[in-house]
């Protein structure tokens, strides 16, 4: 597979140790890529890796060209057959891992191993495109160790050591270079816009979807992954107010609720006190940005729809940090236009006759008192024998009728959906809102951890003078859902179970992820500026950052050079003093000749400096005694000599 454009010098065959290390490197690369590669593919590559390692050890020899070519063809075919393309993130990663294993098959010289190790570094980095969590990043960084150790083991005449000990110098090197890496990380200018298209995530991410089919949250409630983390300025809102709206759904076709992204000026809001907070949103692959009810303005690079839903300009493929202001007490859209009113009353024909009849009955019973109708519906849910379960009985054609008058069991989606249908039937404008509710308050980190399992659906009804009012029928059925969170509501068995314990441990551990997300992953141009402003640097242009990077890098370079040229003081102190004497005598014109013994030298010096004969002879006697009289010279003799040597100043004689 190697291009033979250039004639290579004949190279010595690769030793066993670097080859072993390279195999470990490739195994680590496979390991970090395994989570997003098909299991059979990873397994096949691992088997090939093992075979190659065994083959080179047991019966050394080059793999024939036809084998390499056919394996290459097989790899390409496997990737294409599974992903139906060679391009993109997942197929690319599969190809990179496969090529790396194939490279091992032709690794016979140090040059091949070098190329393999360098390519492994690249392959390790690509693993971070899939998961940039802290654990994944640390694992990938540790994967650099065998790669660096491979490069090191290729050098001849290195100190012999065992295989695990080969990794130690690489670890030291990485640890020593961490400060410089952090400096570079902080000061590298970020791109304001990508140079080429960011990858489209074809990975099916779970999370809220743009439409709602009652029952499809069930999978979401199983998902304990974090959805977002929210840090508040000041006190966090109480549990009952932790509603994060994502989608507003108007249209109902008898089964599914969908939203319609309505552009236009956001609905008017009159509000009370304002809550400020920062959201760290995990990657969703969607554009929606959940916000505490009700957000006042959109953050940068996002826009607000007419229903005060927030959309980012680009899909959130990497964790995103944004700051917002919301008002928990508000009056949303005091005036409803006729067109909007019609939309908020629309019900599909031929569905749910009983529910419609109930709504109309309430209307005739309470007359124009909308609030009384709303209250009647809430009372129905509270006292009507409804129960909250994540595994409700299946519903038929008339989903709302079957639920309201048949099964009586379901979760938030069912309640929100049927509540809105009842309201619309009674002539009250209503809509469904989906988002998150609740969350776990992390006391150490002072932030709210919201998991996918905290997904929630509720309703909004429009009342004259009050605007859109949030009504949560689930709270009427299962108050714990709102006051204590989804975990409490979903808990069916005992309060304490290994699962619960695991979850609470994970909630506490999550603070590390929060720090990582905010400090590392969310470190963008804004935070760069925020970090530099306290130091009086207000200009964060590319040039300024480059200058700072250069200055910081130079400081590190100076430190490194000092380390490199620092000579450990000589352990032999008598020798050090003797060297000092020699230097002084040399300045006085008596240079010690190469291969001149101390006695001869001192005698010559004494002849050249007759005025100091006594001193020099004393020095000579002490030095000779120090050197030749004892196996281990006494300490005071050494002290004596060093003192005498220090005090000796040659006096030039006028000839």
């Amino acid at each position, binding site marked *: 597979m190697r291009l033979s454009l250039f004639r290579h010098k004949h190279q010595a065959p690769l030793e066993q140790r670097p080859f072993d290390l390279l195999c470990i490197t490739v195994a680590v690369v496979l390991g970090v890529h395994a989570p997003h590669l098909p299991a059979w593919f990873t397994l096949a590559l691992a088997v090939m890796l093992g075979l190659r390692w065994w083959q080179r050890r047991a019966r050394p020899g080059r793999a024939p060209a036809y084998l390499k070519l056919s394996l290459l063809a097989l790899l390409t075919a496997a990737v294409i057959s599974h992903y139906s393309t060679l391009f993109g993130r997942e197929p690319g990663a599969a190809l990179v891992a496969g090529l790396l294993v194939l490279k091992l098959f032709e690794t016979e010289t140090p040059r091949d191993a070098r190329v393999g190790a360098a390519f492994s570094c690249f392959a390790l980095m690509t693993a971070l*495109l899939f998961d*940039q969590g802290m654990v994944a990043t640390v694992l990938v960084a540790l994967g650099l160790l065998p790669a660096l150790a491979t490069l090191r083991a290729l*050098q001849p005449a*290195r100190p012999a050591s065992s295989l695990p000990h080969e990794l130690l110098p690489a670890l030291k090197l990485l640890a020593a270079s961490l400060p*410089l890496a952090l400096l*570079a990380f902080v000061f590298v200018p970020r*791109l304001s816009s990508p140079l080429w298209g960011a990858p489209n995530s074809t990975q099916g991410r779970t999370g809220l979807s743009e439409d709602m089919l009652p029952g499809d949250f069930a999978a979401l409630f199983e998902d304990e992954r974090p959805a977002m983390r929210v840090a508040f300025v000041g006190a966090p809102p109480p549990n009952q107010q932790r509603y994060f709206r994502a989608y507003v759904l108007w249209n109902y076709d008898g089964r599914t609720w969908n939203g319609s992204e309505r552009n236009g000026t956001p609905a008017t809001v009159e509000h009370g006190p304002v809550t400020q907070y920062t959201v760290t949103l995990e990657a969703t692959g969607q554009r929606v940005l959940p916000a505490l009810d009700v957000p006042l303005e959109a953050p940068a690079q996002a826009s607000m729809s007419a229903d005060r839903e927030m959309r980012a300009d680009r899909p959130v493929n990497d964790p995103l940090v944004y700051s917002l202001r919301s008002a928990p007490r508000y009056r949303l859209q005091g005036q409803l236009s006729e067109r909007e009113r019609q939309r908020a009353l629309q019900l599909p024909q031929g569905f749910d006759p009983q529910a419609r009849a109930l709504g109309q009955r309430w209307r005739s019973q309470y007359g124009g008192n909308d609030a009384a109708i709303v209250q009647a519906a809430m009372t129905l849910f509270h006292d009507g024998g409804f129960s909250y379960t994540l595994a409700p009985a299946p519903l038929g054609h008339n989903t709302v009728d079957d639920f309201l008058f048949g099964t009586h069991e379901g979760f938030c989606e069912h309640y929100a959906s049927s509540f809105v249908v009842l309201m619309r039937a009674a002539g009250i404008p209503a809509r469904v809102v989906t988002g998150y509710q609740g969350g776990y308050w992390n006391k150490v980190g002072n932030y709210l951890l919201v998991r996918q399992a905290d997904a929630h659906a509720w309703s909004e009804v429009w009342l004259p003078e009050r605007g859109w009012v949030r009504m949560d029928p689930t709270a009427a059925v299962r108050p714990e859902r709102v006051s204590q969170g989804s975990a409490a509501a979903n808990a069916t068995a005992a309060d304490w179970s290994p699962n619960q314990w695991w979850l609470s441990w994970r909630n506490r551990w999550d603070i590390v992820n929060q720090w990582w997300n905010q400090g590392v992953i969310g470190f963008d141009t804004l935070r760069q500026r925020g970090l530099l402003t306290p130091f009086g640097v207000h200009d964060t242009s590319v040039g300024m950052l480059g200058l700072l990077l250069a200055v910081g890098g130079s400081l590190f370079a100076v430190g490194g050079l000092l380390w490199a040229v620092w000579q*450990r003081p000589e352990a032999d102190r008598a020798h050090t003093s003797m060297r000092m004497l020699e230097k002084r005598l040399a300045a006085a014109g008596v240079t010690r000749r190469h291969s001149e013994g101390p006695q001869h030298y001192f005698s010559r010096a004494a002849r050249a400096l007759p005025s100091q004969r006594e001193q020099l002879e004393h020095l000579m006697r002490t030095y000779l005694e120090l050197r030749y009289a004892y196996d281990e010279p006494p300490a005071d003799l050494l002290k004596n000599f060093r003192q005498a040597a220090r005090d000796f100043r040659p006096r030039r004689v006028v000839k």
Partner: protein
Amino acid sequence: MLAAIRRVQTWAERRLPALTRYKRTEPLPIVLHRRRVYIVPTAFGAAFTVLLLIMLVGALNYTNNAALMLTCLLGSATSASMLIAFRSLDGLKLTGIRQGQAIAGEPMAITLVFSGSGHAHVSVHADMNDQAEAFAVEAHGETLVSLQLDTHRRGWRPMPRIKLWSNWPLGLFHAWSWIHPDQAVLVWPHPENGGPPPLLPGEASQRQRLHQGEDIAALRAYRAGDPQRHISWKHSARHDSLLVKDFEQPEAQEEWHLDWRQLAQLSPESRIERLARWLGEAETVGRPTSLWLPTEDIGLGHGRSHYSHCMNALARLP
């Protein structure tokens, strides 16, 4: 043009002595001071830099800070490896050169004695005339490095320039320094291929008598008067009569008095070659020789050191 190149060379020789092959000779010990260690990226280092740049641009483009961190980490590790490469040479000391013995035309074994400074010097290469030897020196330790020096003609052969270099630890940077020890090694003259033996003053043929010596020559029948300890009891057991070990030693070789003046009819080089051949022949049979040269008069002697002494004297002839 040529003048310009020469000017550049002179400048380089003056300003950057260790960078260039035009390093002047200097006396031992040669210490690689930091000012004379140079460093450049290797081809692999350059390719690795390109790879790092690709990783950097990719990480920035995808606003992937974890990947950016990894790239920064790898980048700073590679820059740190530059310092390690430099340190591997810094302070290395060539303390001595030991020469082997070789006649002109044969490679001579040269041993370079390196001693380390306060830290270890790992994976250092010594390049001399297209041959390289890798070695490591412990902190304050000493390492002997053997190299082969090709020889062409007898006499003093100055040591060539030696390049000390290291790609330690990752092979990304190439640190080097040229040294040119102010030393010469003595190459012995090549003996002529064939020719007459030396003319000897005494009778040419002398019977070689058997002497009692150390080596067993044969077994023979016992004769009255043979010492008892010479009887080979083991062999005698298988025979009717007693067998006695017979010892012998060849008579010491006749001395050769080799004289420069005897070869007046030859050119000086041919005389040297002939004398070298005679010395070699005498050495192989253990014949005592003496050698008279215009520069030196070497008395009778035999053995390896006498031979070396004579060959050195021949090599040193003007």
